[in-house]
Structures are given as C-alpha cells and as structure tokens.
C-alpha cells in the first residue's frame, strides 16, 4: 500500500520537474527573443562555482511550497533569505507566521513570534544537515565539499543552468532523494528538495538584491 503511494507520488514528482524545466526553458527562450543575451555561453562546474563564490553576501525574497504526500495541497510560506560568507545563513519567514532560522557554523537557532528560541547542533538532525549544508556549499561555491557529499549533474548554460545534487552516503539517501537548483548566472532562482518518503519542497527565490 505504502509502496503504491510512493510510486504514484514519484510520477507526480516527475511531472512537476518537467514543468519546472519547461517553465525555465521558456524563460530562457523569452530572454533570447528579447535579445538580452544574444550569444549562448557554455558553463562547467568550476566556472559556476567561481561565479557563485563571487557573491559574499546575498539577500532575497523567497516563496516556499511544501508538498506532503498526505496533503492534497501544498503548505505555503514566504519571507527573506540572507547569506553571508562563510557560514551565516538566515531564513526569516513572514507568512503564514513569523519565524527566524539562523544557521551559524554547526548551530541552528529557530526563534518564533514570541522570540522563544531553541538552538541545536546540525549533527543531531541529519536531514536538516544534508539540506542546509548543501545550500551553504553552493552559496560558497565550494566544489570540493559538494563533491564529497553529492553526485553533481550540471545542465544548461550560464544564462540558465540547473544543478542536481544526489547524496552519496546511504544514510543521507534514506532521508533525502536529491535536490535541484535552478539559476541564472550567479543568481539562484529555485531550489527543489525531494525527500526519500516522497515529500518535496520548492523554494522560489524571487528577487536577489546584493
């Protein structure tokens, strides 16, 4: 029964990925039509990392949708993301409720509306560690760290690229399936995180201001 659910969900997931790709290729097509970027540029991993690492500070608005297999519609939230090299990551959610998550080195602090906060070490929560570290290494452009933990697959060109990360370790694979990052030049546009149980999260990064 459970297995059946998973398969049907897997199908749904594929549909969504195709959707995302289609959407983005359409966007790229638009760009070309408008003549914003006439020459296509090739891209390889080291180049991408170098360009990503160039940005020492980032700040952007995000919209997040969590698709849970037991829900018939996604859970939505939005807010602001901040990053400062080398290890500071902040996620402020403004809707549906206020929340602030700060990742500093190995520690995560989550505080709520009443400013009640709890701090814990990433080591104690492997699923969170997989996700947050993956994001952090990408933002840092740290190819060595990324290849240590993930199999990487880069597609596209500098105007529109997608990077798929699949965890290497078996224990990580038990929790997460992969995550997919879409971007344009040194900007990240969308992060999709797929969990092994079939749940997945799509985070769209709206506007990146430096």
């Amino acid at each position, binding site marked *: 029964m459970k297995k059946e659910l998973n398969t049907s969900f897997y199908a749904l997931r594929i549909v969504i990925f195709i959707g995302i790709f289609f959407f983005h290729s359409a966007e790229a097509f638009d760009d070309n039509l408008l003549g914003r970027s006439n020459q296509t540029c090739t891209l390889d991993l080291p180049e991408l990392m170098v360009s990503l690492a160039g940005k020492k500070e980032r700040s952007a608005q995000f919209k997040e949708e969590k698709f849970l297999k037991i829900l018939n519609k996604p859970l939505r939230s939005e807010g602001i993301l901040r990053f400062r090299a080398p290890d500071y990551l902040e996620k402020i959610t403004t809707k549906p409720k206020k929340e602030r998550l700060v990742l500093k080195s*190995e520690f995560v602090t989550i505080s*709520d509306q009443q400013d009640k906060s709890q701090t814990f070490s990433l080591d104690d929560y492997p699923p969170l560690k997989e996700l947050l570290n993956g994001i952090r290494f990408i933002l840092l452009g740290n190819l060595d760290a990324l290849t240590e933990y993930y199999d990487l697959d880069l597609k596209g060109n500098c105007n529109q690229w997608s990077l798929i990360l699949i965890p290497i370790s078996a224990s990580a694979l038990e929790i997460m399936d992969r995550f997919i990052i879409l971007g344009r030049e040194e900007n990240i546009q969308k992060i999709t995180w797929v969990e092994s149980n079939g749940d997945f999260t799509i985070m769209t990064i709206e506007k990146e201001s430096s």
Partner: protein
Amino acid sequence: MKPRTKIIFWIGILFIAFLIIIFRARVETDISLFLPQSSSPQEQFLINQFRHGPGSKLLIISLQGADSKTLARLSNSLTLKLKNDSAFIKVLNSEASVTDQTENFIFSNRYLLSPTLYREDFSPQSLHYTLSETLDRIALSRGFLEKRYLDRDPSGEFISILRSWTETPLLNKKHGVWFSMDGKHAFLVSEIFSEGFNLNQFENAIHIIDDSFKELEQNNSVSLHMVGPPAFAVASRESIRRDATRLSIIATCLVIGILYLFFRSITLIFLCLIPLLCGVLISISAIVLIFGSIHGITLAFGIVIIGVAIDYPLHLFSHIKVNEHPSDAMDRIWPTLRLGVLTTALGFVSMIFSNFDGLIQLATFTVCGLVTAALVTRHILPHITGFSFLEYLPPRIEVLPVEFLMKSKFIFYIFLAGIITFLVFQRSELWENDIAQLSPVPSLQLALDRQIRQELNLPNVSYWVIVKGKSEQSVLRLTESVAEKFQALKNQGEISGFDAVTKYLPSLEKQAKRIETLPSIDQLKENLRIAKKGLPFRENAFEGFIQEVSNAKKSKLLTSEQLRGTLLEARINKLFYRQENLWFSLITFKGSVDEKLLARATSSFPSNSVFVLEPRKTSNILINRYRDRALLFFGWGFLIIVLTLRVALRQWVAVGRVLIPILGSVLTVTAVLITAKIPLSLFHLVSLLLVIGLGIDYALFLNHKLILKQERSKTLHALIVCNLSTVTVFGTLAFSTTPVLRAIGTTVVIGAFLCLLFSLIFASKPKMIDNSV
C-alpha cells in the same frame, strides 16, 4: 637444633615465602574491602552506588588552551581512540545519538511511554487543533521533525516523549562536541570499566587517556585535565605514594645516620633490618595464602604497625656485653621481649574476630609480622651476627635524669588528671566527623570539578530520593506515586527538574491504563474524519496511524527485560537496579534542592521504602560507625593486653607500672591533637596502635624486676636508640603535605616520645650491685 640448621631451615622458609609472593601475590586495590558493612537502607544504597554505581566510575576530561576548532578536533580524535579500548565502558563527547533501533523502539511503544496521553487527545476537536497547529509548524522550519511522523503519529506522542526526556536544555556544543559556555573547554565524559572501586583499573584508564592525548597533541599548547571520583582517588593515592617515598628516603638516611652514631657499624644497621623485612615477607605471603590477595591498605598500614619490630634487634645489640655471644644476651632479654611481642600481638587478635574484612587482614598481617620478627631476632639474628661487629661496644648511658624522673610520679598523676579532665570537657571535639576533610585532593581541583559538573548539567549529587521494594513492579508503582509529588513541585517551580526510572519504564499498571485511554478503532476513524474537515489532508492520510493504534492496543507491556540493548537500558541502569531480593529506584534532581522540601514530599510514604539520601552525610555516618566499631575491637584488644600482662607479671601493681605510662601518653597525644585543632580519625587510631606496641616494649624493659644497674644503662641505650629512630622516621612523616601521612606522623612522634618519658617515671629501681666485668 644447631644454629646452622636453624639458619638453613629459615632460609628455606623465606624462599618459600618469596616464591609465594612472586607467583601468587596480587595487590588488591578495590577500596570496597575496607568499606564497613551497612545497616540502614541509606547506607546499603550508598555502598552499592559506590561499588557498582556508574557515578563513581565517571571520569570527566576537559581540554583547553587552543581555539575551539582545534579543541573540537582533538576531542573527536581522542573519543575515537578511547572508544574501542576495553578499559572504558563508554567515552562520549556529545549526546549519544539515538540509534534507529532505539528510535523505533520508542516510536512503537509511544502509547506505553508517553507521559501526556489523555483520552481527550483523540477527540475530534483536539485532533483538529493538533493537526492544524502541526501543519502551521511544518509550513515553517520548526516543524521539520514533526513532519516525519505526521501521518503515523498525528497527536504527536513521540515528539512529546522526546521533549519530556530532554526537557533540560541540551549541553552547550560547538562544532558538534560538548563545550563550556565560554567555549574555552571541550568536555569528554568516560565511564571506566572496573569491578568495584578499583584504583589500579582507574589508574590504567587514566594512563591510557594521557598517552593517547600525548600522541594526538604534538604541539603542547593544549592541556588536559581530569576530574571525577576515579581521578581524585588515583591522584590521592599517587600523592600519598610520592610523599611516602620521598619522606621515607629522607627518614631512612636519617635513621642510618643515627644508628651509625650509636653502633659505629654499617653491618649492624643492615642486621637491624632483617627481622622487620622477614616479618613483612612472611606476613604478605601468609595473607596471600589465607585471603588470596593482599590489599594495598593492609600493606601500607600493616608495615607502619609492625615497624615496632625494628626495635627488637636494637634491644639485642644494646644489651650485648663485652666478649659475649649475642645468643647469651638474647637469652637474658628474651623473657621481656617475648612478653612485649606477645602482649602487642594478642592485642590485635581481637580484631581477627571482627567481621570487617579489612580489619581481619590488618590484624593477621600485624600478628604474623610481629611474631616472625621476634622469632627471627631470637633464633636467627644472634647466629648471623656472631662476634662480627662487637669491636665497638655500646656506651653506657647514665647522664639522663632517670633518678629525677622516677621521683616525679606525683607530678605525673596531677598532669594525667588534668589531661583527663581536659578530654572529658572536649569530648565533643574528639572526632573528625567529616571525612572530606581528610581528602588529599586540592581544593582547586574540587572547585574545577564543581564547575565542570555544573556546565555538564550532571545531576545534583547532594540529595537523592530512594525508593526500595521487594519486586520490580512494586518499586515502579511506588516510584510513580513519589514522582507525581515531585512533578507537582516542579509545576509550582519549587524544583527545576528531576529524573526517575518510571519516565522510561512505567509500571505495568500505568502502561495498561495508558492503553485504555486509546479510543476504539471505529471511534478513531470517525474522530479523524471530523477532525480533517477544513484541513488539506487526503482521504487515506492516516491509515498508518489507525494501524499503529490498533497494534498498540494489542502490544505487550514493557518490563526491564525488553529494554535490553536499547539506549533506554543505559538510562534505566543509572536509576534502577536490583540487589539480591531488593529493588532500588533512584530519583535525581537538577539544580539546587532543599532537603526539607524533599523530606516533606516523601513524608507520606513509609520511611523504610521511600527515603531522602544525602550521600555526604550518610558516608560520614558510615565511616564514623566503622571507626566506632574499630574502637570497640581496640577496646577488646586492650583488655586482652591487660589480662596477658596480669598473667605474666602476676601483680596488678606491675601491670599498672607498664600500662599507666602508655595510657598517659595515648591520652596526652589526644589532648595535644585536640589543642592543635586536629580532630581524631581512623588514621590516628592506627597510629595509636603502633604507639601502644612501642610503649609496651619500653615499659617492660624498664620494669624488668631484677635489673642490675649496668644492665639498666644498656636498656636505656637501647630505648634511646629505638625511640630516636622512631621519632626520626615519623617526625619526617609529620612534615608531609598529605593529611593521612601527617596524621600518622604527628601521632607516633608525640606518642613514642611520651611513652619513653612516662615509662621512665614508672621504671623499677635497679639493683645497686654491679657484678659485671
């Protein structure tokens, strides 16, 4: 037997003893042997904790002196290195992560374990509320843990259990390992493998830690500190050993100097040592044969007490006349010497009948040692000595104001009366009742220990509440009722937290009750159908949940058996154990607690099954009772001494002449110690035993009835050499920085000196005819 046969026979015996020691001797270092037998429930519990409790084998390692990253790396590599060593039961530098097995166990038994399970939790309204709240949290980041269990555990029992088990804030961590708040110290906690409280195993573990650390830390900037009972016990033994070695080297040199001054012969000095060495050798092998092993404490104290045997050859050598064979001199002094040895040895026989293993060993050692030394002095030593050293004859000593002392009996009685009056008034100050005062651990170390314990959030060790019962379930049920009281106190904010076994292993009764609170499957389905209204759940979202509740209703209730192999077992072992036919459960507290509050909370329960334990106070009571029992046996010993002397000397007056000076000096030593604000401990008692042994010899020699004047001067010579060497040895010990050694040193120095002085007052008048040479 011919002298030569005797010597050969003796060498044979020594050889056998030597072989026994080489092949059989094992020095026992488990202090438990010297722990008194317990009577009250508090004491039983405490002793068991001390012997088997994990707390007493906990060693905390602190690293400091580098940036946090270096410390964390070092902490990790050290943990990795030590983890697989059999000297340790466990080594941790962060919370043991919950293994999948344990997690599954807790998850599938959550309805038995959850402290917050109520029937209303499964009502449509309550479920609706919980589900919508959980979805809100999952939408944010904070619900990341709940998300995993939402479909199977929508009422959130699993998370609620985990939360209640880790309600106290987690320890501060940096780079994933335990750190102090200021980030300057990295902490590791290890539990040493040891049967009982075994110092050798502790020392071995500490060496392993030191060596591994040195291997890992090459640039010497990081320093490692260890605190905890094993570290302290080993450090104290080490400091006593170091102190004792250093001081005994000094003392030996001084004594050799003194003996040379009196006898002008190196050979003789070595001959003096033979009886004592033989005594030690035979005693050790006897103890090994009888008990299987010898305890370190027996060895140390035993050698101190039979130290009196060094006097036997000194008496012999001092009494030798010109051109006299030592055997003839021996024949003359033997009756006196024999009586002295016999009296002292018989004094210890009473202890053999005590039921303290430690005292029995000590008494056996002493009796064996004294008798051996005396026999060697009598039968072997004169023949080895021969005429070899007698070119130099001991001088006569007549300068001492002996005559004057002998006339001052009256003053002595007044003095003694004064001492007794003083002691009667000061009797409440007599004993040291806080054994911690005798601890050689520097206060700086103890302060570090306290600080680290606080930072590590280890349970408060000042008070525990103990629940005792005849079966596992009765103790669990009683613990539950007691825990309810403390939960109420916690809710009122009177205590900051507590831990009890029933958190992890509820009584069967409680588990059955919890299962009863679960709704019927049909009811649950209906409730869920209503609860889902207005929420984005799919039709069959909670199939898993319904299945789990139905399983739980049929599940087997938990007993300690089923917890084997899970992380819970370790938690439970600290709080719950069986000793013979009794079960004990322990409630520990976080932060500071008030004794009165605990007493009030437990007052409604029968006092012999639920009681408050103050380990420090109880251990003091325990040690003090041990001392009192030991004192009782010393009393019996003294009575035996009196009777022996009565039989041998035939007159009560003669007994008085021997014993009054000794009693006088024992009382005076006590008075001096009290005046110097040094209350008496067990160590002083052991030292007084030696003083009594010395005193009996002094007094007997000075009371020899038909003594001639020339003989008297030789006796004086002997006594002065004996006394001077004793005072030198123990005077050196009195300068020790270790409280135990200092106690022994001061007691013996003052006691030995006073014994000689007072014995002189009571000495018999020598005959005036000088018919010698």
